[in-house]
Protein backbone atom coordinates (compact mmCIF):
# COMPACT_ATOMS: atom_id res chain seq x y z
CA UNK A 1 0.00 0.00 0.00
CA UNK A 2 2.15 2.83 -1.25
CA UNK A 3 -0.65 5.38 -1.27
CA UNK A 4 -1.68 4.75 2.28
CA UNK A 5 -5.31 4.65 1.21
CA UNK A 6 -7.57 1.85 2.24
CA UNK A 7 -9.74 2.18 -0.81
CA UNK A 8 -8.85 -0.16 -3.62
CA UNK A 9 -10.37 0.03 -7.02
CA UNK A 10 -11.44 -2.71 -9.31
CA UNK A 11 -9.41 -1.29 -12.14
CA UNK A 12 -5.86 -2.30 -13.09
CA UNK A 13 -5.34 1.31 -14.15
CA UNK A 14 -7.46 4.03 -12.59
CA UNK A 15 -7.41 7.68 -13.62
CA UNK A 16 -9.79 9.98 -11.80
CA UNK A 17 -10.29 13.73 -12.20
CA UNK A 18 -6.89 14.21 -13.83
CA UNK A 19 -6.02 17.67 -15.14
CA UNK A 20 -2.82 19.20 -16.46
CA UNK A 21 -2.12 22.58 -18.06
CA UNK A 22 0.80 23.78 -20.12
CA UNK A 23 1.16 27.57 -20.10
CA UNK A 24 -2.52 28.00 -19.39
CA UNK A 25 -3.61 25.46 -22.01
CA UNK A 26 -5.60 22.63 -20.43
CA UNK A 27 -4.25 19.60 -22.24
CA UNK A 28 -6.07 17.22 -19.92
CA UNK A 29 -9.24 18.36 -18.24
CA UNK A 30 -10.86 16.32 -15.49
CA UNK A 31 -10.13 13.04 -17.27
CA UNK A 32 -11.36 9.79 -15.77
CA UNK A 33 -10.62 6.38 -17.22
CA UNK A 34 -10.78 2.88 -15.80
CA UNK A 35 -9.10 -0.09 -17.36
CA UNK A 36 -9.79 -3.66 -16.30
CA UNK A 37 -7.07 -6.31 -16.30
CA UNK A 38 -6.90 -8.16 -19.61
CA UNK A 39 -8.77 -5.46 -21.48
CA UNK A 40 -7.86 -4.02 -24.88
CA UNK A 41 -8.88 -0.37 -25.20
CA UNK A 42 -8.64 1.91 -28.20
CA UNK A 43 -8.35 5.64 -27.61
CA UNK A 44 -9.46 7.86 -30.46
CA UNK A 45 -9.95 11.58 -30.78
CA UNK A 46 -8.98 14.51 -32.97
CA UNK A 47 -5.52 16.08 -32.87
CA UNK A 48 -4.87 17.86 -29.60
CA UNK A 49 -7.46 15.81 -27.72
CA UNK A 50 -4.81 14.90 -25.13
CA UNK A 51 -4.15 11.29 -26.12
CA UNK A 52 -0.37 11.46 -25.98
CA UNK A 53 -0.43 13.68 -22.87
CA UNK A 54 -2.55 11.05 -21.16
CA UNK A 55 0.15 8.46 -21.92
CA UNK A 56 2.79 10.87 -20.66
CA UNK A 57 0.92 11.12 -17.36
CA UNK A 58 0.51 7.36 -16.97
CA UNK A 59 4.20 6.71 -17.70
CA UNK A 60 5.49 9.48 -15.45
CA UNK A 61 6.84 11.81 -18.12
CA UNK A 62 4.34 14.51 -17.15
CA UNK A 63 3.01 15.17 -13.65
CA UNK A 64 -0.68 16.03 -13.45
CA UNK A 65 -1.72 19.23 -11.64
CA UNK A 66 -4.54 17.36 -9.94
CA UNK A 67 -6.28 14.02 -9.94
CA UNK A 68 -5.43 10.45 -9.14
CA UNK A 69 -3.53 7.92 -11.23
CA UNK A 70 -3.49 4.52 -9.55
CA UNK A 71 -2.05 1.25 -10.81
CA UNK A 72 -2.54 -2.37 -9.87
CA UNK A 73 -5.89 -2.06 -8.13
CA UNK A 74 -4.98 1.08 -6.25
CA UNK A 75 -1.67 -0.23 -4.94
CA UNK A 76 0.60 2.34 -6.57
CA UNK A 77 0.19 6.08 -6.98
CA UNK A 78 1.84 6.74 -10.34
CA UNK A 79 1.94 10.51 -9.84
CA UNK A 80 4.67 10.00 -7.25
CA UNK A 81 6.95 7.84 -9.40
CA UNK A 82 9.34 8.60 -12.24
CA UNK A 83 9.56 6.97 -15.68
CA UNK A 84 12.00 4.27 -14.64
CA UNK A 85 10.06 3.23 -11.54
CA UNK A 86 6.79 3.09 -13.48
CA UNK A 87 8.38 1.04 -16.26
CA UNK A 88 9.66 -1.40 -13.65
CA UNK A 89 6.18 -1.71 -12.12
CA UNK A 90 5.07 -3.15 -15.45
CA UNK A 91 3.85 -0.34 -17.66
CA UNK A 92 5.46 -0.43 -21.08
CA UNK A 93 5.18 2.20 -23.76
CA UNK A 94 5.55 2.45 -27.51
CA UNK A 95 6.02 5.96 -28.78
CA UNK A 96 4.15 7.66 -31.58
CA UNK A 97 7.37 8.06 -33.54
CA UNK A 98 9.03 4.65 -33.42
CA UNK A 99 11.97 4.97 -31.05
CA UNK A 100 14.45 2.12 -31.17
CA UNK A 101 18.19 2.06 -30.53
CA UNK A 102 19.18 2.66 -34.13
CA UNK A 103 22.89 1.98 -33.81
CA UNK A 104 22.38 -1.52 -32.41
CA UNK A 105 21.15 -4.71 -34.00
CA UNK A 106 17.51 -5.70 -33.95
CA UNK A 107 18.38 -8.62 -31.67
CA UNK A 108 20.25 -6.34 -29.26
CA UNK A 109 17.23 -4.06 -29.07
CA UNK A 110 15.18 -7.02 -27.87
CA UNK A 111 17.97 -8.09 -25.50
CA UNK A 112 17.98 -4.65 -23.89
CA UNK A 113 14.22 -4.82 -23.39
CA UNK A 114 14.10 -8.32 -21.85
CA UNK A 115 12.53 -8.38 -18.42
CA UNK A 116 15.12 -8.77 -15.68
CA UNK A 117 17.51 -6.85 -13.40
CA UNK A 118 18.46 -3.49 -14.84
CA UNK A 119 21.21 -2.13 -12.56
CA UNK A 120 24.68 -1.28 -13.95
CA UNK A 121 26.27 -4.10 -11.96
CA UNK A 122 23.82 -6.69 -13.22
CA UNK A 123 24.47 -5.51 -16.79
CA UNK A 124 28.22 -5.92 -16.30
CA UNK A 125 28.14 -9.31 -14.62
CA UNK A 126 24.58 -10.58 -14.87
CA UNK A 127 22.54 -12.96 -16.97
CA UNK A 128 21.86 -10.44 -19.72
CA UNK A 129 25.33 -11.29 -21.03
CA UNK A 130 24.32 -14.91 -21.55
CA UNK A 131 20.81 -14.78 -22.91
CA UNK A 132 20.03 -17.74 -25.16
CA UNK A 133 19.52 -16.79 -28.79
CA UNK A 134 16.28 -18.81 -28.88
CA UNK A 135 14.66 -16.55 -26.34
CA UNK A 136 15.29 -13.49 -28.49
CA UNK A 137 14.40 -15.36 -31.66
CA UNK A 138 11.01 -16.42 -30.33
CA UNK A 139 10.12 -12.78 -29.65
CA UNK A 140 11.44 -11.73 -33.06
CA UNK A 141 9.35 -14.49 -34.58
CA UNK A 142 6.19 -13.23 -32.87
CA UNK A 143 6.93 -9.69 -34.06
CA UNK A 144 7.63 -10.94 -37.59
CA UNK A 145 11.24 -9.77 -37.53
CA UNK A 146 13.26 -12.98 -37.54
CA UNK A 147 14.68 -12.14 -40.97
CA UNK A 148 15.99 -8.80 -39.70
CA UNK A 149 17.69 -10.25 -36.65
CA UNK A 150 21.23 -9.04 -37.28
CA UNK A 151 20.48 -5.83 -39.14
CA UNK A 152 21.10 -2.45 -37.61
CA UNK A 153 17.78 -1.24 -36.19
CA UNK A 154 18.28 2.11 -37.96
CA UNK A 155 18.28 0.37 -41.35
CA UNK A 156 14.94 -1.42 -41.21
CA UNK A 157 11.74 0.07 -42.65
CA UNK A 158 9.49 2.38 -40.69
CA UNK A 159 6.80 -0.29 -40.37
CA UNK A 160 9.29 -2.84 -39.09
CA UNK A 161 10.58 -0.36 -36.54
CA UNK A 162 7.02 -0.16 -35.22
CA UNK A 163 6.99 -3.94 -34.87
CA UNK A 164 10.41 -3.91 -33.28
CA UNK A 165 9.14 -1.51 -30.68
CA UNK A 166 6.15 -3.74 -30.03
CA UNK A 167 8.56 -6.69 -29.84
CA UNK A 168 10.59 -4.78 -27.26
CA UNK A 169 7.39 -4.30 -25.25
CA UNK A 170 6.80 -8.04 -25.47
CA UNK A 171 10.31 -8.71 -24.19
CA UNK A 172 9.70 -6.27 -21.36
CA UNK A 173 6.57 -8.30 -20.53
CA UNK A 174 4.67 -5.48 -18.80
CA UNK A 175 1.23 -5.74 -17.22
CA UNK A 176 -0.04 -2.89 -19.43
CA UNK A 177 1.17 -1.92 -22.89
CA UNK A 178 0.56 1.66 -23.95
CA UNK A 179 0.80 1.79 -27.71
CA UNK A 180 0.77 5.14 -29.48
CA UNK A 181 -0.24 5.05 -33.17
CA UNK A 182 1.18 1.65 -34.11
CA UNK A 183 -0.21 1.74 -37.65
CA UNK A 184 1.21 5.13 -38.62
CA UNK A 185 3.16 4.89 -41.86
CA UNK A 186 2.16 1.28 -42.52
CA UNK A 187 0.72 -0.30 -45.63
CA UNK A 188 -2.76 -1.81 -45.36
CA UNK A 189 -1.32 -5.32 -45.21
CA UNK A 190 1.12 -4.32 -42.46
CA UNK A 191 -1.71 -2.61 -40.57
CA UNK A 192 -3.76 -5.81 -40.52
CA UNK A 193 -0.71 -7.83 -39.45
CA UNK A 194 -0.30 -5.36 -36.60
CA UNK A 195 -3.90 -5.96 -35.56
CA UNK A 196 -3.23 -9.70 -35.42
CA UNK A 197 -0.05 -9.09 -33.42
CA UNK A 198 -1.84 -6.93 -30.85
CA UNK A 199 -4.67 -9.43 -30.52
CA UNK A 200 -2.16 -12.17 -29.84
CA UNK A 201 -0.39 -10.03 -27.22
CA UNK A 202 -3.76 -9.15 -25.64
CA UNK A 203 -4.25 -12.82 -24.68
CA UNK A 204 -2.06 -12.26 -21.64
CA UNK A 205 -1.51 -8.50 -21.50
CA UNK A 206 -3.69 -5.44 -20.99
CA UNK A 207 -3.38 -2.98 -23.87
CA UNK A 208 -4.22 0.66 -24.52
CA UNK A 209 -3.89 1.68 -28.17
CA UNK A 210 -4.07 5.23 -29.45
CA UNK A 211 -4.91 5.29 -33.16
CA UNK A 212 -6.34 7.56 -35.83
CA UNK A 213 -6.94 4.86 -38.42
CA UNK A 214 -10.60 3.84 -38.06
CA UNK A 215 -10.19 0.65 -40.09
CA UNK A 216 -7.50 -0.37 -37.66
CA UNK A 217 -9.69 0.40 -34.64
CA UNK A 218 -12.60 -1.48 -36.19
CA UNK A 219 -10.39 -4.50 -36.79
CA UNK A 220 -9.23 -4.45 -33.17
CA UNK A 221 -12.88 -4.99 -32.19
CA UNK A 222 -12.59 -3.65 -28.65
CA UNK A 223 -14.03 -0.99 -26.35
CA UNK A 224 -13.34 2.53 -27.63
CA UNK A 225 -12.85 5.78 -25.71
CA UNK A 226 -13.09 9.06 -27.58
CA UNK A 227 -11.17 11.97 -26.07
CA UNK A 228 -11.83 15.60 -26.82
CA UNK A 229 -10.21 18.67 -25.29
CA UNK A 230 -8.63 16.58 -22.59
CA UNK A 231 -11.65 14.67 -21.31
CA UNK A 232 -13.75 11.67 -22.25
CA UNK A 233 -16.41 12.48 -24.80
CA UNK A 234 -17.85 9.04 -25.37
CA UNK A 235 -17.08 5.44 -24.49
CA UNK A 236 -18.40 2.11 -25.74
CA UNK A 237 -18.31 0.01 -28.89
CA UNK A 238 -16.91 1.66 -31.99
CA UNK A 239 -20.35 1.81 -33.57
CA UNK A 240 -21.98 3.46 -30.58
CA UNK A 241 -19.11 5.96 -30.28
CA UNK A 242 -19.06 6.69 -33.99
CA UNK A 243 -22.83 7.20 -33.92
CA UNK A 244 -22.66 9.65 -31.00
CA UNK A 245 -23.81 13.09 -32.14
CA UNK A 246 -21.11 14.95 -30.19
CA UNK A 247 -18.36 12.73 -31.61
CA UNK A 248 -19.58 13.41 -35.14
CA UNK A 249 -19.57 17.14 -34.43
CA UNK A 250 -16.04 17.03 -33.06
CA UNK A 251 -14.70 15.10 -36.02
CA UNK A 252 -16.56 17.06 -38.69
CA UNK A 253 -16.14 20.43 -37.06
CA UNK A 254 -18.92 22.63 -35.85
Amino acid at each position, binding site marked *: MQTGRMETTQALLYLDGVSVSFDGFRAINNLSLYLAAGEMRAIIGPNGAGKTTMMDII*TGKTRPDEGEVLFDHGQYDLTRL*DETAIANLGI*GRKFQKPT*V*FEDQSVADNILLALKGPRSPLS*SLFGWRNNVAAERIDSILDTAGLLGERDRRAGEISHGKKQWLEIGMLLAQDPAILLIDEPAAGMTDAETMQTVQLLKRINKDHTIIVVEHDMDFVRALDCKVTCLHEGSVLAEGTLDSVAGDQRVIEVYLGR
Partner: protein
Amino acid sequence: MITRYIFSRHDKAGMIFLICSALLAVLIPAGNLLLPADSPFHVPDHVVSLSGKYLCYASLAIALDLVWGYCGILSLGHGAFFALGGYAMGMYLMRQIGPRGVYAHPVLPDFMVFLNWKELPWFWHGFDMFPFAIFMALFVPGLLAFVFGWLAFRSRVTGVYLSIITQALTYALLLAFFRNDMGFGGNNGLTDFKDILGYNIQSRGVRAVLFFLSALLMIGVYLVSRWMVTTSFGKVVLAVRDAEPRARFLGYRTEHYKLAVFTVSAAMAGLAGALYVPQVGIINPSEFSPANSIEAVIWVAVGGRGTLVGAAIGAFAVNLMKTIFTTGALAPYWLFMLGGLFVLVTLAMPKGILGAISALADRLARLRRPRPTLAAAE
Protein backbone atom coordinates in the same frame (compact mmCIF):
# COMPACT_ATOMS: atom_id res chain seq x y z
CA MET B 1 35.08 -14.15 -16.78
CA ILE B 2 36.84 -10.90 -17.62
CA THR B 3 39.50 -12.69 -19.61
CA ARG B 4 36.84 -14.49 -21.60
CA TYR B 5 35.53 -11.16 -22.86
CA ILE B 6 39.00 -9.90 -23.58
CA PHE B 7 40.00 -12.80 -25.74
CA SER B 8 36.72 -13.83 -27.29
CA ARG B 9 35.45 -10.54 -28.63
CA HIS B 10 38.34 -8.73 -30.18
CA ASP B 11 38.04 -6.84 -33.37
CA LYS B 12 41.04 -6.69 -35.68
CA ALA B 13 42.00 -3.12 -34.77
CA GLY B 14 41.93 -3.99 -31.08
CA MET B 15 44.14 -7.04 -31.55
CA ILE B 16 46.70 -5.08 -33.61
CA PHE B 17 46.63 -2.31 -31.03
CA LEU B 18 47.28 -4.73 -28.15
CA ILE B 19 50.13 -6.46 -29.94
CA CYS B 20 51.79 -3.17 -30.95
CA SER B 21 51.43 -1.74 -27.43
CA ALA B 22 52.92 -4.85 -25.85
CA LEU B 23 55.83 -4.78 -28.31
CA LEU B 24 56.47 -1.09 -27.65
CA ALA B 25 56.30 -1.64 -23.90
CA VAL B 26 59.20 -4.09 -24.17
CA LEU B 27 61.22 -2.87 -27.16
CA ILE B 28 61.58 0.80 -26.25
CA PRO B 29 62.99 0.26 -22.74
CA ALA B 30 65.14 -2.60 -24.09
CA GLY B 31 66.42 -0.46 -26.96
CA ASN B 32 67.25 2.27 -24.50
CA LEU B 33 68.94 0.24 -21.77
CA LEU B 34 70.48 -2.78 -23.51
CA LEU B 35 71.75 -1.44 -26.82
CA PRO B 36 74.95 0.65 -26.98
CA ALA B 37 74.48 4.35 -27.84
CA ASP B 38 76.06 3.92 -31.30
CA SER B 39 73.68 1.13 -32.35
CA PRO B 40 71.23 2.18 -35.05
CA PHE B 41 68.42 0.68 -32.95
CA HIS B 42 69.37 2.52 -29.78
CA VAL B 43 66.48 4.51 -28.35
CA PRO B 44 67.65 7.86 -26.96
CA ASP B 45 66.64 8.87 -23.44
CA HIS B 46 64.50 11.77 -24.50
CA VAL B 47 62.44 9.52 -26.78
CA VAL B 48 61.70 7.26 -23.81
CA SER B 49 60.37 10.05 -21.62
CA LEU B 50 58.54 11.71 -24.51
CA SER B 51 56.77 8.55 -25.58
CA GLY B 52 56.03 7.72 -21.94
CA LYS B 53 54.22 11.05 -21.79
CA TYR B 54 52.29 10.18 -24.95
CA LEU B 55 51.22 6.89 -23.41
CA CYS B 56 49.70 8.74 -20.46
CA TYR B 57 47.87 11.03 -22.86
CA ALA B 58 46.64 7.99 -24.75
CA SER B 59 45.23 6.52 -21.51
CA LEU B 60 43.45 9.81 -20.87
CA ALA B 61 42.10 9.76 -24.44
CA ILE B 62 40.73 6.22 -24.09
CA ALA B 63 39.08 7.13 -20.78
CA LEU B 64 37.54 10.20 -22.43
CA ASP B 65 36.35 8.16 -25.40
CA LEU B 66 34.56 5.83 -23.00
CA VAL B 67 32.37 8.68 -21.71
CA TRP B 68 32.08 10.66 -24.93
CA GLY B 69 32.14 8.08 -27.70
CA TYR B 70 30.03 5.46 -25.95
CA CYS B 71 27.93 7.32 -23.40
CA GLY B 72 27.57 10.61 -25.29
CA ILE B 73 28.82 12.73 -22.38
CA LEU B 74 31.10 15.35 -23.92
CA SER B 75 33.33 16.14 -20.97
CA LEU B 76 35.34 19.31 -21.47
CA GLY B 77 36.90 18.89 -18.05
CA HIS B 78 38.61 15.53 -18.17
CA GLY B 79 41.97 17.23 -17.81
CA ALA B 80 40.91 18.03 -14.24
CA PHE B 81 40.79 14.34 -13.29
CA PHE B 82 44.16 13.79 -14.96
CA ALA B 83 45.64 16.74 -13.05
CA LEU B 84 44.18 15.61 -9.71
CA GLY B 85 45.79 12.22 -10.15
CA GLY B 86 48.98 14.06 -11.03
CA TYR B 87 48.81 16.12 -7.84
CA ALA B 88 48.36 12.97 -5.75
CA MET B 89 51.57 11.59 -7.22
CA GLY B 90 53.26 15.00 -6.94
CA MET B 91 52.48 15.10 -3.21
CA TYR B 92 54.08 11.70 -2.75
CA LEU B 93 57.16 12.82 -4.68
CA MET B 94 57.38 15.99 -2.56
CA ARG B 95 57.28 13.92 0.63
CA GLN B 96 60.04 11.74 -0.82
CA ILE B 97 62.37 14.77 -0.98
CA GLY B 98 62.43 14.81 2.83
CA PRO B 99 65.22 16.95 4.31
CA ARG B 100 66.99 17.38 0.95
CA GLY B 101 64.94 20.51 0.08
CA VAL B 102 66.51 23.96 -0.17
CA TYR B 103 65.36 24.78 3.38
CA ALA B 104 66.27 21.30 4.61
CA HIS B 105 63.12 20.97 6.70
CA PRO B 106 62.71 17.31 7.69
CA VAL B 107 59.02 17.10 6.79
CA LEU B 108 57.67 20.27 5.18
CA PRO B 109 58.16 20.77 1.44
CA ASP B 110 60.05 23.92 0.50
CA PHE B 111 57.03 25.97 -0.49
CA MET B 112 55.43 25.45 2.94
CA VAL B 113 58.58 26.60 4.71
CA PHE B 114 58.68 29.59 2.40
CA LEU B 115 55.08 30.42 3.35
CA ASN B 116 56.06 30.17 7.03
CA TRP B 117 53.83 27.16 7.69
CA LYS B 118 54.65 25.38 10.92
CA GLU B 119 53.16 22.00 10.24
CA LEU B 120 51.89 19.79 7.47
CA PRO B 121 48.24 20.44 6.47
CA TRP B 122 45.97 17.48 7.33
CA PHE B 123 45.42 16.53 3.69
CA TRP B 124 49.15 16.03 3.17
CA HIS B 125 49.26 13.22 5.72
CA GLY B 126 49.67 9.73 4.36
CA PHE B 127 51.22 10.90 1.13
CA ASP B 128 54.62 9.67 2.29
CA MET B 129 53.25 6.19 1.53
CA PHE B 130 53.30 5.21 -2.14
CA PRO B 131 50.27 2.87 -2.09
CA PHE B 132 48.23 5.60 -0.38
CA ALA B 133 49.22 8.13 -3.07
CA ILE B 134 48.24 5.71 -5.85
CA PHE B 135 44.97 5.03 -4.09
CA MET B 136 44.28 8.75 -3.85
CA ALA B 137 45.17 9.21 -7.54
CA LEU B 138 42.24 6.90 -8.27
CA PHE B 139 39.96 7.87 -5.42
CA VAL B 140 40.00 11.68 -5.53
CA PRO B 141 39.19 12.04 -9.27
CA GLY B 142 36.68 9.21 -8.93
CA LEU B 143 34.99 10.84 -5.94
CA LEU B 144 34.86 14.23 -7.63
CA ALA B 145 33.37 12.68 -10.76
CA PHE B 146 30.87 10.75 -8.64
CA VAL B 147 29.64 13.79 -6.71
CA PHE B 148 29.65 16.03 -9.78
CA GLY B 149 27.94 13.39 -11.91
CA TRP B 150 25.40 12.55 -9.22
CA LEU B 151 24.27 16.17 -9.09
CA ALA B 152 24.36 16.73 -12.85
CA PHE B 153 22.85 13.47 -14.10
CA ARG B 154 20.15 13.38 -11.42
CA SER B 155 19.05 16.85 -12.49
CA ARG B 156 19.11 15.61 -16.09
CA VAL B 157 21.68 18.14 -17.24
CA THR B 158 22.77 16.95 -20.68
CA GLY B 159 24.36 18.04 -23.93
CA VAL B 160 26.07 21.37 -24.24
CA TYR B 161 24.99 22.47 -20.75
CA LEU B 162 26.80 19.54 -19.22
CA SER B 163 29.88 20.25 -21.35
CA ILE B 164 29.93 23.83 -20.15
CA ILE B 165 29.76 22.90 -16.48
CA THR B 166 32.54 20.33 -16.88
CA GLN B 167 34.59 23.14 -18.39
CA ALA B 168 33.67 25.38 -15.46
CA LEU B 169 34.71 22.60 -13.07
CA THR B 170 38.24 22.41 -14.43
CA TYR B 171 38.50 26.22 -14.57
CA ALA B 172 37.38 26.50 -10.93
CA LEU B 173 40.03 23.98 -9.93
CA LEU B 174 42.62 25.93 -11.92
CA LEU B 175 41.83 29.09 -9.96
CA ALA B 176 41.73 27.22 -6.65
CA PHE B 177 45.09 25.52 -7.18
CA PHE B 178 46.66 28.84 -8.12
CA ARG B 179 46.08 30.06 -4.56
CA ASN B 180 49.01 29.58 -2.22
CA ASP B 181 46.79 28.90 0.78
CA MET B 182 45.22 25.90 -0.95
CA GLY B 183 48.39 24.12 0.11
CA PHE B 184 49.48 22.71 -3.24
CA GLY B 185 52.35 25.01 -4.06
CA GLY B 186 50.23 27.67 -5.77
CA ASN B 187 51.41 28.99 -9.08
CA ASN B 188 54.63 26.95 -9.09
CA GLY B 189 52.95 23.66 -8.29
CA LEU B 190 55.03 20.72 -7.17
CA THR B 191 58.48 20.06 -8.65
CA ASP B 192 62.17 19.37 -7.92
CA PHE B 193 61.35 15.72 -7.35
CA LYS B 194 64.25 13.52 -6.28
CA ASP B 195 63.21 9.92 -5.66
CA ILE B 196 60.41 7.53 -6.34
CA LEU B 197 60.25 4.50 -4.03
CA GLY B 198 63.82 5.34 -3.04
CA TYR B 199 65.19 5.28 -6.58
CA ASN B 200 66.53 8.36 -8.34
CA ILE B 201 63.71 9.66 -10.51
CA GLN B 202 66.16 10.94 -13.13
CA SER B 203 67.93 7.64 -13.61
CA ARG B 204 67.57 5.80 -16.90
CA GLY B 205 66.37 2.64 -15.19
CA VAL B 206 63.53 4.42 -13.40
CA ARG B 207 62.56 6.23 -16.60
CA ALA B 208 62.43 2.94 -18.48
CA VAL B 209 60.28 1.39 -15.74
CA LEU B 210 57.95 4.40 -15.78
CA PHE B 211 57.63 4.03 -19.54
CA PHE B 212 56.85 0.34 -19.19
CA LEU B 213 54.22 1.05 -16.53
CA SER B 214 52.64 3.74 -18.73
CA ALA B 215 52.32 1.25 -21.57
CA LEU B 216 50.86 -1.27 -19.15
CA LEU B 217 48.41 1.34 -17.89
CA MET B 218 47.30 2.17 -21.41
CA ILE B 219 46.72 -1.51 -22.14
CA GLY B 220 44.86 -1.85 -18.84
CA VAL B 221 42.67 1.20 -19.47
CA TYR B 222 41.91 -0.15 -22.94
CA LEU B 223 41.00 -3.61 -21.65
CA VAL B 224 38.77 -2.29 -18.86
CA SER B 225 37.00 0.05 -21.28
CA ARG B 226 36.72 -2.64 -23.91
CA TRP B 227 35.29 -5.06 -21.38
CA MET B 228 32.73 -2.50 -20.22
CA VAL B 229 31.53 -1.71 -23.73
CA THR B 230 31.29 -5.32 -24.91
CA THR B 231 29.12 -6.53 -22.03
CA SER B 232 25.40 -5.82 -21.95
CA PHE B 233 26.42 -2.83 -19.83
CA GLY B 234 27.93 -1.36 -23.00
CA LYS B 235 24.71 -1.93 -24.90
CA VAL B 236 22.76 -0.04 -22.27
CA VAL B 237 25.34 2.74 -22.39
CA LEU B 238 24.92 3.03 -26.17
CA ALA B 239 21.16 3.06 -25.65
CA VAL B 240 21.56 5.93 -23.20
CA ARG B 241 23.70 7.79 -25.73
CA ASP B 242 21.28 7.35 -28.62
CA ALA B 243 17.86 7.52 -26.95
CA GLU B 244 18.02 8.21 -23.24
CA PRO B 245 14.25 8.73 -22.68
CA ARG B 246 13.58 5.39 -24.40
CA ALA B 247 16.04 3.65 -22.10
CA ARG B 248 14.24 5.19 -19.13
CA PHE B 249 10.88 3.91 -20.35
CA LEU B 250 12.46 0.48 -20.61
CA GLY B 251 13.14 0.70 -16.89
CA TYR B 252 16.85 1.59 -16.89
CA ARG B 253 18.09 4.12 -14.35
CA THR B 254 20.08 5.96 -16.98
CA GLU B 255 21.68 8.32 -14.47
CA HIS B 256 23.24 5.34 -12.67
CA TYR B 257 24.80 4.14 -15.91
CA LYS B 258 26.18 7.57 -16.74
CA LEU B 259 27.49 7.91 -13.23
CA ALA B 260 29.24 4.54 -13.40
CA VAL B 261 30.91 5.33 -16.73
CA PHE B 262 31.88 8.86 -15.71
CA THR B 263 33.38 7.75 -12.38
CA VAL B 264 35.37 4.84 -13.82
CA SER B 265 36.64 7.07 -16.60
CA ALA B 266 37.71 9.79 -14.16
CA ALA B 267 39.57 7.29 -11.97
CA MET B 268 41.44 5.94 -15.01
CA ALA B 269 42.29 9.50 -16.08
CA GLY B 270 43.62 10.14 -12.58
CA LEU B 271 45.91 7.13 -12.75
CA ALA B 272 47.22 8.34 -16.12
CA GLY B 273 47.98 11.71 -14.52
CA ALA B 274 49.80 9.99 -11.67
CA LEU B 275 52.16 8.26 -14.11
CA TYR B 276 52.55 11.41 -16.17
CA VAL B 277 53.93 13.58 -13.37
CA PRO B 278 57.12 11.62 -12.53
CA GLN B 279 57.97 11.55 -16.25
CA VAL B 280 57.62 15.28 -16.83
CA GLY B 281 58.97 16.20 -13.38
CA ILE B 282 56.38 18.83 -12.51
CA ILE B 283 52.69 19.35 -11.81
CA ASN B 284 51.23 22.84 -11.62
CA PRO B 285 47.80 24.45 -11.96
CA SER B 286 48.18 24.95 -15.72
CA GLU B 287 47.33 21.24 -16.06
CA PHE B 288 43.78 22.26 -15.09
CA SER B 289 43.55 24.78 -17.91
CA PRO B 290 40.40 24.32 -20.02
CA ALA B 291 42.55 24.22 -23.17
CA ASN B 292 44.12 20.93 -22.01
CA SER B 293 40.73 19.28 -21.67
CA ILE B 294 39.65 20.56 -25.07
CA GLU B 295 42.86 19.27 -26.60
CA ALA B 296 42.08 15.81 -25.24
CA VAL B 297 38.69 15.98 -26.96
CA ILE B 298 40.48 16.82 -30.21
CA TRP B 299 42.74 13.74 -29.84
CA VAL B 300 39.67 11.56 -29.58
CA ALA B 301 37.91 13.23 -32.51
CA VAL B 302 41.01 13.02 -34.70
CA GLY B 303 41.62 9.37 -33.90
CA GLY B 304 37.99 8.33 -34.25
CA ARG B 305 35.51 8.50 -31.44
CA GLY B 306 33.64 5.51 -30.12
CA THR B 307 36.48 3.13 -31.04
CA LEU B 308 38.85 3.31 -28.01
CA VAL B 309 41.81 2.33 -30.24
CA GLY B 310 41.21 5.45 -32.32
CA ALA B 311 41.41 7.63 -29.23
CA ALA B 312 44.88 6.29 -28.45
CA ILE B 313 45.98 6.75 -32.08
CA GLY B 314 44.67 10.31 -32.03
CA ALA B 315 46.54 11.11 -28.83
CA PHE B 316 49.79 9.86 -30.37
CA ALA B 317 49.28 11.54 -33.74
CA VAL B 318 48.30 14.96 -32.42
CA ASN B 319 51.01 15.02 -29.76
CA LEU B 320 53.66 13.90 -32.20
CA MET B 321 52.65 16.78 -34.46
CA LYS B 322 52.66 19.10 -31.48
CA THR B 323 56.20 18.04 -30.57
CA ILE B 324 57.39 18.52 -34.16
CA PHE B 325 55.68 21.80 -34.90
CA THR B 326 56.13 23.59 -31.58
CA THR B 327 59.91 23.29 -31.73
CA GLY B 328 60.60 24.74 -35.19
CA ALA B 329 59.89 27.98 -37.01
CA LEU B 330 56.20 27.08 -37.15
CA ALA B 331 55.83 27.17 -33.35
CA PRO B 332 53.72 30.37 -33.17
CA TYR B 333 51.19 28.83 -35.53
CA TRP B 334 50.64 25.56 -33.68
CA LEU B 335 47.21 26.46 -32.28
CA PHE B 336 46.05 27.45 -35.76
CA MET B 337 47.28 24.11 -37.07
CA LEU B 338 45.50 22.27 -34.27
CA GLY B 339 42.27 24.12 -34.97
CA GLY B 340 42.66 23.52 -38.68
CA LEU B 341 43.29 19.84 -38.08
CA PHE B 342 40.12 19.58 -36.01
CA VAL B 343 38.05 21.26 -38.73
CA LEU B 344 39.66 19.16 -41.45
CA VAL B 345 39.08 15.87 -39.63
CA THR B 346 35.50 16.78 -38.78
CA LEU B 347 34.74 17.62 -42.40
CA ALA B 348 36.83 15.08 -44.31
CA MET B 349 37.13 12.15 -41.89
CA PRO B 350 34.11 12.20 -39.59
CA LYS B 351 35.12 8.81 -38.24
CA GLY B 352 38.68 9.94 -37.60
CA ILE B 353 41.95 8.31 -38.57
CA LEU B 354 40.81 4.84 -37.55
CA GLY B 355 37.61 5.19 -39.57
CA ALA B 356 39.60 6.28 -42.63
CA ILE B 357 42.03 3.37 -42.24
CA SER B 358 39.32 0.74 -41.93
CA ALA B 359 37.46 2.20 -44.92
CA LEU B 360 40.68 1.95 -46.92
CA ALA B 361 41.25 -1.63 -45.73
CA ASP B 362 37.71 -2.54 -46.80
CA ARG B 363 38.31 -1.09 -50.26
CA LEU B 364 41.58 -2.97 -50.65
CA ALA B 365 39.94 -6.22 -49.61
CA ARG B 366 37.22 -5.67 -52.18
CA LEU B 367 39.81 -5.03 -54.91
CA ARG B 368 41.67 -8.20 -54.12
CA ARG B 369 38.53 -10.32 -54.39
CA PRO B 370 37.89 -11.35 -58.00
CA ARG B 371 35.11 -9.30 -59.48
CA PRO B 372 32.03 -11.18 -60.69
CA THR B 373 32.15 -11.03 -64.47
CA LEU B 374 29.56 -11.50 -67.20
CA ALA B 375 31.36 -14.67 -68.31
CA ALA B 376 30.84 -16.16 -64.88
CA ALA B 377 27.18 -15.33 -65.05
CA GLU B 378 26.78 -17.21 -68.30
